[in-house]
Every structure is written in C-alpha cells, then in structure tokens.
C-alpha cells in the first residue's frame, strides 16, 4: 500500500519518483464517436507485477497498444519508461519487451535463430546475444534444444522461451498479453515463477489475463469496464473492499456484462481456476 500512497499524491504527468515506470494521466482514446479509453489514471512501479484485467471489449487492448507505442492517445499524458507515448513511441519501443497471446516465435527457425533474430532487432551486439543465449538456455535447461526448430517443441516450452526472449534485452517493462492461454497448469505455475524472478530483477511486468487465479499472483490489479478503470488495488484489498473470497468474485461483481456483450462471462469460466 505504500506504493499506492505515492501515486495518490501525484498530480502532474511527470514521473513521480524514479521508481515509476508507467504514468498515465487522463488518458482518452477515441475511435470516431466510440470512446475506447475514458480518462484512465494510474501508475506502475519498478519491479511491480501489474495485472490488467477486464472483459473482452473493455478497452484493455487499446490501452496496451498505447502503452507499447503502437498507437497514440487522443488526449492525456502517457509516460512509459521515461518517454512520452505521443512524442517518442520509438524510444518506448526500445525500452520494453512484448509477448502476446498468440505464440510469438517463428516455427520454422531454430531456438538459437529466433534468439539471434530478436537480439538483433533490439540492437544487441553479437557477443552480448551469444552470452545471454547461453545463460538463457541454461536457465531453462534448454541447452540440447538450441538447434531444434521451434515447431518441434511442446507449447509450454515455447511459451517459456518466448517470455525469456521478450526480456532478453533487459527492458524496463515487459508487456504480457494473455501469455498463458492454452498452457497446462504445471507450465503455468513455472511460467509465473519466471515472472516473479523477472520482477525481482527490477523488470516491471505488465500482464493481461483472463485467469483469475493468476490475478491473485499480481502485486496490484486494475479492472477495466467499458473503457474506464473501475478498481485498482492489491488483490487482498480488493477482496476486502468487495467482501469477496476471490478476485474472480470481485471481477464478476464489478465487471458485470453490459447487455451488448452477454458473452463476456463465458470468457472467464470458473473451470479455468
């Protein structure tokens, strides 16, 4: 909660402390008449695991695209890794990692070739890439897979590898867009262990997920509904505030499906827990 207090005293778009890696002030994004993001305000701190929840169509993806420099806000101030999302998206891109819901490595390249490719794209020197590759493969106990095509690996391994590649260039923030979709529970647990390790190294983890048990693992979570952030706190505080036993209960209480989107609840079935 100490972190939360800091954020509440902030009033300008300037990063509040050196520990703030994302600052969002009055962010509005419109597509024509449709308001996808309606006046968002939040901070994310260094080394934090920040869960970004919301039903499909709540505006998560739009916000994520703005934060990762893919899209420009209509109004408001967004600072990511010390750069303005409106003016310096290219700088933001250099300082973040990204892994998406769909699997993001190339199936027809080997493990090593994929690592080389992404290392190269992020401007790492060849020496550094080789060094980190060795470390990365060792940490994953992957050494014997280095020359294998990605297509031959099981999905769980692929996801772990994709995550390792996304943080290989030591970004300030890594965005994970539903990273554990379709992965078995054991791999999911291992995946979250990797997330913890990464956050402990000082890399901020910004994660969207539909698995409510995963939301419990986050330091703080925000819940979006119809373009607005309707709740933002630690999982424990939210459960207390909404008098709920689990984050899932909180989520269902807050993010009630609007009549236009009756299918929302089906995306978060209890059976997933």
């Amino acid at each position, binding site marked *: 909660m100490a972190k939360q207090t800091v954020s509440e005293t902030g009033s300008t778009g300037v990063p509040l402390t050196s520990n703030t890696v994302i600052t969002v002030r009055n962010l509005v994004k419109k597509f024509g008449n449709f308001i996808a993001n309606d006046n968002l305000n939040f901070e994310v701190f260094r080394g934090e695991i920040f869960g970004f929840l919301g039903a499909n169509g709540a505006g998560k993806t739009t916000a994520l695209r703005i934060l990762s420099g*893919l899209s420009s806000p209509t109004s408001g101030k967004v600072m990511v890794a010390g750069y303005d999302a409106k003016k310096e998206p290219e700088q933001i891109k250099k300082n973040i990692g990204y892994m998406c819901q769909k699997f993001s490595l*190339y199936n027809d390249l080997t493990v090593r070739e994929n690592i080389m*490719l*992404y290392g190269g794209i992020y401007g790492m020197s060849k020496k550094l890439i080789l060094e980190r590759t060795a470390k990365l493969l060792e940490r994953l106990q992957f050494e014997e897979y280095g020359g294998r095509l990605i297509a031959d690996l099981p999905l769980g391994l692929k996801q772990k590898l994709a995550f390792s590649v996304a943080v290989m260039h030591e970004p300030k923030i890594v965005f994970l867009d539903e990273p554990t979709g379709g992965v078995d529970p054991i791999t999911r647990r291992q995946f979250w262990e990797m997330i913890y390790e990464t956050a402990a190294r000082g890399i901020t983890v910004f994660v969207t997920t539909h698995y409510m048990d995963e939301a419990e693992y986050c330091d703080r979570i925000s819940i979006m509904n119809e373009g607005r952030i309707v709740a933002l706190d630690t999982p424990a505080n939210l459960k207390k505030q909404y008098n709920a036993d689990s984050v899932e209960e909180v989520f269902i209480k807050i993010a009630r499906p609007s009549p236009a989107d009756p299918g929302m609840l089906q995306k978060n079935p209890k059976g997933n827990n």
Partner: protein
Amino acid sequence: MKRFIGFVKKEFLHIFRDFRTLIILFGIPTVQILIFGFVVSMDLKDANVAFLDLSNDEITRRISDKICSSGFFRRTDNLRDYKDVDRVMKKGDTRAVIIFGDNFGRDLARSGRATMSIIADGSEPNTATLITNYATAIITDFNRELDRTARIGNILVQPEVRMFYNPGLKGHFMFVPGVITLILILICALMTSITITREKEFGTMEVLLVSPLKPSQIILGKVMPYFLLSFINVILILLLSWLVFGLPVRGSIALLLAESMLYILMSLSLGILISTISKTMQQAIFISLVGLMLPTILLSGFIFPIENMPGIYDVVSSVLPPRYFILIIKNIMIKGAGFSDVWRETLIIALMTAVFIGLSIRNFKVRLQ
C-alpha cells in the same frame, strides 16, 4: 541498419526452409517455360499436306514432288475441288493445302509468272508459320532451278500464303513474355501477401511492430528477398528460353532488366496492398489467384489477343498491369524496341506502382491508429 540485416536474413531462412516456397519460386517458372516451349514445338517433320492441282502439268507435278521429297511434308490427299479444301482441313490431320489454279500452267507459259496458294491451318499458329515458311523456301529454291534450266528466263512461281482461322497469327513466341509476366506477378504479389499475412496470423507481426523496427523496415525487409529472387527468376527464364529454344533478346538486355525491376516493384507493392486488406493467408491466396493470376492469363493478352476482346473485357484488361508489361517485354524481346517505343507503358506501370504503395500506406496507418 544492423537490425534490418538480421531481419532480412530471417526472411531468407523462411524461404529456404520451406520446400513449397522454393518450388513456387523456381520450379514453376522452369516447368512453365519448358512446357510452353516444347508443346509449342519449333520443329517441322512430316507435316500432312494435301494438294489441289487443277493445272496438273509438268511444272506443278515437279513442285509437288519437290515439296514432298523435302522430308518436311507428307502428301495425304489429292483433292479434286476447292470445296474439299475446307473439308480436309476441318478433319484436323491436314495442316495445309497447296493449290495450283487451273490456269497456272497457261499463265506460266504465257507471261513467265504464275501464282500458287498455300493455305495453312492458323489455329496452330506456330506450325502454320513453319509450314508456310518452309514451303515458301522450297518454292524459292525451285524458282532458282527453273531459272537456270528455262530458256526463256525469268520464270517465276509466286507462292501466296493464306492463314485460315487465325489470320494474324497472334501467339507466336508470345509464351516467354507471357510466362515472365505471369510468374513475376504470381511470385511477387502472392508470395509477399502470404508472407506478410502469415506474420499477422501467427501473431509475430504484433511483436515486430512493438519492436524498435520501423514499419517501413519490416515491410522492406519482408519484400527485399522476393525482389532479389524474382530478379534472378527473370534472368533464369531468359537464359532458359535462349538456351533451350534459341529465343534471342533483340533489344537492349539492360532495358529489359530495368523494365522487369519496375514490374517486380509494382507486383510487390500490389502484394503489400493485398496483405493490408486480407486478414488470413487463405484470403491473401484467394485474392492473388483469382484477382491476379486468372486475369493475367485470360485478359492481359498472354493467350487471347486483346484486339479480339469485346469492349468490357478490354476495359477490365486496361487496368491490369500485366497487359502493359507484356507489350513492353514483347516489343523489346521480339521487335528490338528501345525505350522511346515503350515509355508510355513504362509510365503507366510506374503510376500504378505509386498508387498501390500509396493505398498500402493509407491502409497500414488506419490499422495502426
């Protein structure tokens, strides 16, 4: 720049790892050239010829014998009447009919000149040309003999060539320009649209867009290998058609290659445009094949002459870039034309390229907004 090179390298790896891509890139052009080349045979041997000899004198018999003993022709029929000409030709095995009118001998005796007719089946243009050329050569040769032996001197038998069914003989030697045109637009547009939509479908495009690579670098990096490989393809096709079929490039090879580069560029930008409007690979393939390959084969003048197209098809054809490229390449290869003869078509293709690139950028921006 280093980021970019690594990215291009990856694109080459995609191509060389995928057997199907390699087949489309290099197998199809080779096979097409060979098929078109060998089916449209350049050799003439024992072509079936019928004779209608109404004059039936010593000279006409000597000409007929000379033609039939050449090894190129075989006599199938001796016709009695003009009405039979159409009948034997329609049966199909007779490639040509050689006709001496009933006053042939009289004309030759009286004025020293006479006219005979060679009627060939123009529905097979290549064979028809060969037959008339060979027959004409034989008759020219006969004239020389006649000239030497005849006491009167200056006797001349004049062959008059007619084509049945396809008088303009369109299609002759058209297959190489046609195949180049088809292959390039197919490879460039189809392959680029597939490779870009594949990244979209697999989710790797998002990762690339979030990376420090600029969108322009991503697109350039993706099309660059196809530009290089297509260019190699042009050279391969030209070499093949020259080595295997002896088809020369009469005009400037540099000009031909430069025009090919422009056309490759056009096809690539078309491929990029297709990728911006299709969400899946299937969609991209469908648009490329139905929207590009079929019109190119049917409407660009590759197989069916544009001159014979009904109005509406002509209009559709006029927005197809292949139509102009076929003209350019045909003029350069076969007629030996220079830039001053093809600048108009070149300009049209350049303008089309600009339009495609402009539309792609617009679509791309909308997506990123």
